[in-house]
């Protein structure tokens, strides 16, 4: 056993050396017009050697280390506590939610403009993740091209305002419906594909839509994007310094207060907040409705669900369309916040990030998704010094999370109904 362990540990250490040594140890640099290799600094070499040695030790004593880690669970005081009774949990959750919303409503008035702006972005991601959660978490359909619907929402608003001068409030439902329509039309033919085939096809759709937006220069401006997207108004009051649209008044003049840029940022934040809350509640209700139940049923066992008379296409399509609808919402808010959109905001990485939020949060769980959206958007901002390592850490975190806590931060818990024992 020891000999085997030793051999294995040695093998792993050698592999570590082989992987790290060429890529880290030699740097390709351009000297004038020639490419040469430079050996890396002594520090890198030592680091690689140390890494290999650590791998060696870890593999050698793997059983003992893992055993030790397993013991940690016993130290956790929460480990053997009885799960909270459902009613108490639901009550606690509702109180928590109420407090959270109250804080979220008043918080922007006390912090800086930059933070409010960031929070708006977080809310947009929450909307996106909640929408994708319906598709991936509840219905179990792997959608890798979700960003396409986000783009449809954003571009719908941008084009409507650009060509017909339609305002945010008019465009919001149109953007959502347009995205839903795209979901319906695209979803209809592909939803009979299974699992991973569906994944690649949705990925393809995402790319196709981005490329078309980029190529259709005469309408979408192509790579130049669309600028001058108006901000939302409050009953015809604009938040800019000067009124841009005829017939509108400006917010600060109506109320006779001094102009402050914060008004606009906070107003946008509040809109995003309200929309995010609407999204969360709408989906929460849907989950309890027959359609929501059938999503989960189909995810858990397609054959059983079909044998109970559920229409596979109908159920999948409803999930796909509703998910797309909320992405359209988020897209409209995004376009309004940015004032300028171009296809480069809707690349595959964006889809991957939204998917990561859903999975990190715990598929199907709304609170978890909200927490994960906050974490994924804010952590990189906080870790600006590590900006270069940001994506590296992001990738590693995704892997580690899947290995150690695949159920996500806050796993979904089913509502249970117990029959009361007769007394």
């Amino acid at each position, binding site marked *: 056993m020891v000999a085997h362990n030793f051999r294995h540990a040695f093998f792993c250490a050698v592999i570590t050396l082989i992987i790290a040594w060429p890529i880290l140890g030699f740097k390709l640099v*351009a000297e*004038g*017009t*020639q*490419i040469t290799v430079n050996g890396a600094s002594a520090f890198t070499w030592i680091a690689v050697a140390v890494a290999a040695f650590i791998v060696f030790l870890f593999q050698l004593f793997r059983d003992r280390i893992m055993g030790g880690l397993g013991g940690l669970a016993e130290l956790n005081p929460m480990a053997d506590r009885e799960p909270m009774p459902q009613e108490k949990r639901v009550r606690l959750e509702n109180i928590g939610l109420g407090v959270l919303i109250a804080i979220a409503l008043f918080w922007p008035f006390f912090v*800086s*403009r*930059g933070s*409010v*702006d*960031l929070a708006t*972005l977080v809310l947009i991601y929450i909307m996106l993740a909640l929408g994708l959660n319906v598709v991936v978490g509840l219905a179990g359909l792997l959608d890798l091209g979700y960003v396409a619907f986000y783009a449809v929402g954003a571009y719908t608003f941008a084009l409507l305002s650009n060509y017909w001068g339609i305002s945010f409030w008019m465009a919001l439902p149109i953007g959502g419906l347009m995205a839903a329509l795209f979901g319906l039309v695209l979803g209809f033919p592909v939803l009979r594909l299974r699992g991973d085939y569906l994944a690649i096809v949705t990925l393809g759709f995402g790319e196709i839509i981005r490329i078309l937006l*980029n*190529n259709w*220069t005469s309408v979408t401006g*192509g*790579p*130049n*994007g669309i*600028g*001058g997207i108006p901000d939302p108004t409050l009953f015809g009051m604009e938040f*800019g*310094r000067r009124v841009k649209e005829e017939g509108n008044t400006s917010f600060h003049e109506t109320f006779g207060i001094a102009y402050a*840029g914060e008004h*606009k*940022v906070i107003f946008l934040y509040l809109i995003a907040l309200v929309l995010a809350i609407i999204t969360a509640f709408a989906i929460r209700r849907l989950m309890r409705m027959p359609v929501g139940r059938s999503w989960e049923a189909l995810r858990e066992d397609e054959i059983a669900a079909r044998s109970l008379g559920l229409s596979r296409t109908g159920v999948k399509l409803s999930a796909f369309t509703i998910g797309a609808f909320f992405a359209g919402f988020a897209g409209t808010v995004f376009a309004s*916040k*940015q*004032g*300028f*959109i*171009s296809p*480069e*905001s809707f690349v595959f990485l964006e889809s991957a990030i939204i998917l990561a939020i859903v999975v990190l949060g715990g598929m199907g769980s709304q609170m978890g998704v909200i927490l994960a959206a906050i974490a994924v958007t804010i952590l990189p*901002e906080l870790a*600006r010094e590590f*900006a*270069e390592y940001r994506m590296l850490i992001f990738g590693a975190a995704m892997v580690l999370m899947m290995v150690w806590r695949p159920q996500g931060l806050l796993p979904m818990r089913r509502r249970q109904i117990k029959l009361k024992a007769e007394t």
Partner: protein
Amino acid sequence: MIRNFTKLALATGISAAIVLPASVLAEIKIGIAGPVTGPVAQYGDMQFSGARMAIKQINADGGVDGEMLEAVEMDDVCDPKQAVSVANNMINEGVSFVVGHLCSSSTQPASDIYEDEGILMITPASTSPAITERGYELVFRTIGLDSMQGPAAANHLISLDPKRVAVVHDKQQYGEGIATEVRDTLEEAGVNVVMFEGITAGAKDFSSLVTKLRQADVDYVYYGGYHPELGLILRQAQQAELDATFMGPEGVGNKDINTIAGDAAEGLLVTLPPSFDEKEENQELVQAFEEAGEDPSGPFVLTSYTAVQLIAEGIEQAGSTDPFEVADALREGSFETPIGTVRYDDKGDMESFEFVVYEWHADGSKTPVNQ
């Protein structure tokens, strides 16, 4: 309160002789926004080193009307989304003058916010005409426009009397913008443009494109875009023995193209802003950069230096740090800067910005082409 009092005391003490209102001794914050990380960070480095140098020199000469400049640096990664949050953070910091951003797609959404909030912005690198086309009062630049560079390149091509020209671009804002200008100018002059086509940025395989160019029997190819793709096109064209002369904008004119294209880069024509660092009147400045261990030769170093200098001179001429008054001063005045005499039109573009056609060589050097 105590802090204010000390400030006041200090201010009266120091500025008594120069007769200045005590209240303005606060520092003037200059925001510098550009990519510190990300794929185009190398261009961001140029921007930052130019602006820092200008701030350092101005402060060493006693500041602007006695007030010191203070740099507020922020990283936008050239991502439109982050550019908006940078712009908001600039407002938090109380900045009223910004040098940036670098990429046109970042500059555009950020400038909406600056204009709204009364912040004067000078971009040293964004060349998209759309940025100054929206009638904004506070948006300026110290670089030429795609719509200036395109015709410059096209006019050179016209002078070469081409028979069949292909115009190719990378489907990005910068590349397609210039390529469109080139095509339009060529067509106006009656040149036979046989092909106008986009490629995918980041692609590696151009064998089909090269075959198509050979089939079209072109003698000149204009490429709008950056060096990684053009380098590969040049190399694959050489391999397929395509006999045509290539031309590109400043985005292709750096030595990296030689490491990719090798010999195939010989004879490539490039339009570049004149090398400001080689001008005689700038030698003192170049020396200052070299002493500080910085490289003054990048295309955006001196434009960004100039941006800071213009802000400083604008404040001096306006006699105020109000961005609107400074903007008026910039529009009215004429300024001697390292990139030449700067005069602004109503939109905030320089009235003239010269481009020079260079011939690129296999060893990475370039020689100006006499027209």
